[in-house]
């Protein structure tokens, strides 16, 4: 016990030496000009996402299994059956853009669960006390989802190419593919974060997430063209942003007929709307 009073002294030597180099911690950083805040926060959130992926790639691998199975089993089989009218393109080619969009959507839907988890862990709380408007924080998160989905898309594209799907290698078209993937993921992550702001607990969101992803997938043109759907499903498909994303991806990657202008307009509007909705519901999570 005689050494007990000495313990704090030894511990204090550490900060004392560090205290000599604190000059930068005396000067607050200059605030960025208004318009620069949004891109700066988006970059910050995307960097965090990439850093996390770099430390732990297991999610990347496990999430590659499902799209691989879809392409390999569903794609190959239905190519052989020729049951789905695809206008001349082999079914697996027709399917590949749909699977890219699907795997991106699955990743994005997970973001609502993540934001609840970050709320419970205090990470979100702390970010909300930084000079970051809620919309900028949500935009950052949704584009981080886009970055993650993009990496996933690269995996699926490479896999599809290995299966012999003839896709474009035109860099401009691939850039447009990237934009479509990011916009779609931004929308779906915001959808999920909005629901998170409504239901507030992880368990409830997990159930809802599972309940909506498959219907969103089936009520789109990812697996079959809109023309073969019954009338009511065609209507649902028309208001489903996933359909526009798949249409754009198909047009860009395969060179099939697509409504690119409409697709990108819908995707951009959906992403913007999603960010606004999720940002306005974020306050409920902070409470």
């Amino acid at each position, binding site marked *: 016990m005689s050494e007990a009073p000495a313990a704090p002294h030894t511990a204090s030597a550490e900060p004392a030496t560090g205290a000599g180099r*604190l000059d930068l*911690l*005396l000067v607050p950083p200059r605030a960025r000009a208004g318009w620069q805040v949004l891109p700066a926060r988006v970059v910050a959130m995307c960097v*965090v996402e990439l850093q996390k992926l770099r*430390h732990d790639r297991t999610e990347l691998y496990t999430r590659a299994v499902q799209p691989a199975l879809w392409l390999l089993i569903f794609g190959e089989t239905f190519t052989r059956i020729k049951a789905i009218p695809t206008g001349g393109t082999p079914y697996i080619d027709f399917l590949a853009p749909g699977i890219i969009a699907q795997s991106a959507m699955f990743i994005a839907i997970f973001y609502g669960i993540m934001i609840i988890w970050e709320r419970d862990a205090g990470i979100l*709380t*702390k970010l909300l006390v930084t000079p970051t408007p809620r919309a900028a924080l949500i935009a950052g998160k949704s584009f981080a989802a886009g970055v993650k989905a993009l990496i996933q898309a690269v995996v699926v594209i490479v896999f599809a190419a290995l299966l012999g799907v003839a896709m474009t290698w035109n860099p401009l078209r691939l850039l447009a593919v990237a934009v479509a993937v990011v916009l779609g993921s931004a929308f779906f992550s915001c959808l999920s974060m909005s629901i998170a702001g409504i239901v507030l607990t992880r368990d409830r969101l997990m159930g809802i997430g599972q309940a909506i992803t498959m219907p969103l997938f089936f009520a789109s043109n990812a697996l079959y063209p809109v023309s073969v759907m019954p009338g009511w499903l065609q209507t649902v498909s028309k208001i489903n942003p996933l359909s526009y994303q798949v249409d754009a991806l198909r047009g860009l990657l395969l060179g099939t007929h697509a409504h690119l202008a409409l697709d990108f307009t819908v995707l951009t509007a959906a992403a913007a709307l999603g960010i606004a909705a999720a940002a306005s519901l974020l306050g409920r999570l902070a409470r």
Partner: protein
Amino acid sequence: MTSDDEGRPGRLPGAAGPGRAPFAHRAPAPDATAHRAPAPAPDAGSASAPDAVTCRGLRYAFGETRAVDGVDLSVRPGEVFGLLGPNGAGKTTAIRCITTLLSVPAGMVRVFGHDAAKERMAVRRLLGYVPQQLSADAGLTGRENVALFARVFDVPRRERAARVAQALAAVGLTDAAGRLANTYSGGMVRRLELAQALVSAPRLLMLDEPTIGLDPIARTSVWEHINAVRAATGMTVLVTTHYMDEADQYCDRVALMHHGRIRALGTPDELRAALSARRRAARTAAPPTAPGTPTPTPAPAASPASAVSPSAAPSRSSDAAPTLEDVFRDVAGSGLDEQSGDFRDVRSTRRTAHRVG
């Protein structure tokens, strides 16, 4: 063991004895007597410069629960201000109102003169906030955790690495900076969070129960780093805790909070002196065992340490200084009984703290 217990009477006002000695370095000044003085002159500055935090009739309710129920307080620039109270007192809610996390009507909260309702971003730029839970991102390294906060506070790229390195050095995490935060101990995570808060050079550091759940060594270490940084930067610290002994040791002024209200406010010495005066007055007016006079609960006899501790020595109660806990029991009144579990916890934690050093 005995040396610790001899240290306890050092809590007497004016007798900054051996009990204080290990913490005397908390202020940059080498003399142990000056360690309570806030960094800037407390009265000269307050007339012109705005207070670090001003709350006027602060209220916040969760449905029927009035978590904060009319709090008035001002935190002076440069001081370490402690918001004390048992669990459920409303400390966290008050902190969350000040940080702009919970929205309050205009005019209730000001931070360095900025209204928390009208100038959210300006307030946030002045704040470094460490919430009650351990909140570092486990999937990132220590350095990446701090760099994120450098980014969201607009630290320019060319000075980011140096600033992050300084923040990590200030909390003694330079060597662990490259490791994932999920390999850190609780005390290290707390220090990492401190670095995250410090990287933006806040003028007000808000710490919500910074030492909750930490072992005594880690608690001391966290406080040492807080004090070293405060000494070097002169920033204001607003801290909540339910460890009365910590508040006594490290805070310039404390507010005792209970059921959403502030029950007493002042320096620990003032509060204890006031209780002594009240007790003296009560004794002269009534027989020594007057009902209503809060008598300190004797600690379990199993611990030899408690036998000589001032709070458990009734024979000395006339001249022994009461502890902050005694003050709290006095001002909190009857409603404290259902919370007594908290205080027993604090007592036992304190005993452990003394045993380990």
